[in-house]
């Protein structure tokens, strides 16, 4: 019997052919670090730890993809923010780079090869390429235009800027979009096949604001990545039901769905070409016994048999999730 590589499995799914089983690709960060006895701080600060942790998880849980996701502040650091690494927590951003409209004017797109945090992720992509030889899909990671603007200006201030000063908001997000394209290109060149674009804050804005400020920028980033031969996974955690019609126009190849979003409705709105990735509640994966997690995942997998679907939790697998629950998720894919 022919043994397919994980890349070939994914290609089959993309083409709409039956890959033989459901693809399994949970988002791992803190969990993966703990799994190899390292801290989240080390995972975020050093690509060697991040890659080692993901490769171990790839092997132990028979995952079908690996990722470079770590924290929101790679680009923000390159833009000039101070970052503090916390041993068992998300890195902290120590200052808002954007405090006034004048700061936006002055903001320059950094060289991703010159700043240690962006370069570290690029090095991670290179390490995956060496280790996996293009046989496993590698997901790079960038911040979406609104997420990065919020990282630079602060969430509340940025969301109010959208209302009060649309022109300044547009300028800032244009710069964030350029940064996203530059960083995506570097990761693709270093060995990534897919670029994850995290724009989580979008679930907190209305459809009109998303359409006015965010959708077309995300779309431009996606088109750029496609022009370079890469694919895009759009990640907006939280309830995005109200955004789905606009998200369809972004043309992402994979859309992550959190547990609050109805998966059937999403398929209907996003169409048959989009691969949906989700959408078990990560708290449920953490709290239920393994047999219940298996049951839940198996029911979801069965309901998605003729759909383009990847099994994952709606967002990051929590650090306290028992490893046997991930094994149960993978088992449900068979």
């Amino acid at each position, binding site marked *: 019997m022919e043994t397919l590589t994980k890349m070939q499995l994914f290609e089959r799914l993309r083409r709409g052919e039956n890959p033989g089983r459901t693809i399994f690709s949970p988002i791992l960060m803190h969990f993966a670090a703990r799994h190899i006895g390292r801290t989240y701080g080390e995972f975020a600060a050093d690509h060697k730890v991040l890659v080692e942790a993901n490769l171990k998880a790839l092997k132990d849980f028979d995952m079908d993809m690996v990722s470079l996701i770590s924290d929101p502040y790679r680009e923000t650091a390159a833009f000039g923010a101070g970052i503090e690494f916390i041993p068992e927590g*998300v890195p902290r951003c120590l200052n808002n780079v954007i405090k006034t409209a004048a700061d936006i004017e002055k903001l320059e797109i950094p060289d991703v090869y010159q700043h240690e945090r962006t370069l570290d992720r690029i090095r991670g992509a290179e390490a995956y390429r060496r280790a996996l030889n293009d046989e496993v899909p590698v997901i790079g990671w960038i911040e979406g235009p609104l997420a990065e603007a919020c990282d630079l200006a602060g969430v509340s201030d940025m969301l109010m800027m959208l*209302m009060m000063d649309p022109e300044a908001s547009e300028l800032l997000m244009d710069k964030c979009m350029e940064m996203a394209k530059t960083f995506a290109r570097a990761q693709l060149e270093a060995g990534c096949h897919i670029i994850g674009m995290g724009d989580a804050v979008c679930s907190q804005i*209305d459809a009109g*604001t998303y359409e006015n400020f965010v959708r077309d920028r995300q779309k431009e980033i996606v088109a750029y990545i496609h022009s370079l031969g890469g694919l895009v996974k759009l990640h907006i955690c939280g309830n995005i039901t109200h955004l789905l019609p606009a998200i369809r126009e972004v043309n992402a190849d994979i859309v992550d769905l959190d547990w609050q979003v109805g998966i059937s409705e999403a398929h209907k709105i996003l169409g048959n070409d989009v691969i949906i990735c989700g959408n078990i509640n*990560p*708290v449920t994966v953490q709290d239920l016994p393994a047999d219940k997690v298996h049951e839940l995942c198996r029911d979801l997998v069965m309901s998605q048999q003729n759909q383009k679907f990847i099994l994952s939790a709606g967002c990051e697998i929590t650090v306290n999730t028992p490893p046997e629950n991930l094994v149960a998720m993978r088992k449900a894919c068979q």
Partner: protein
Amino acid sequence: MSDYLHKIAHCIEFGKINRQSPYPPNMKDQDGADEYTQQALQSGISAQHVLLHGLITGMEKIGKKFRENQVFVPQVLMSAKAMNTAMAHLMPYFSSGELKSKGTFIIGTVAGDLHDIGKNLVSMIMKGNGWNVIDLGMDVSTEKFMEAIQQHPDAVVGLSALLTTTMASMEQTVARIKAEKPATTVAIGGAPVSQAFCEKIGADVYSPHPQGLVEYLEKKNN
């Protein structure tokens, strides 16, 4: 209800801060919550009426719309900003004792959690509903919550967590509050939190929306 009070409530509901504010575009060059509050007080309307029928009415409306997904975070932030501007004119009446708050509400994100948008929304909506809010900020230790409760023994305490990883901190803080100050009402909220988790850790109330907390406390106080 006086025209002024109606206008204040309307400005707060739609986030119109003052005449200079360009938001919302359809109210450009019109007076906002700032001007109407001053005009209402100058016309002799009592501060109590301005608070009750202007600010609180406006915040209640936006809180309900938020709960029903008719508006999202940016619109609520604008309403809160308009409310804060109006509230500044009422502060002297609180200081003189003419106005009384509904009670004290202590809020913070639990230890390890640096995500404050949900906490800020609850804080603003509580303030707009007439509560004296003590915002302890982000990454607040149990010790710090206990100190604040010591200073404000009748306060309601709100704990916010966005990360599943910080739910454990929430559990520890609730346990300590309930062990040492069992009469304190503890409210919890945040993306990973649920009613089941609320019951498990012994908190008093969970609401996925700030308005749910406002209504719970209204009922409790009445």
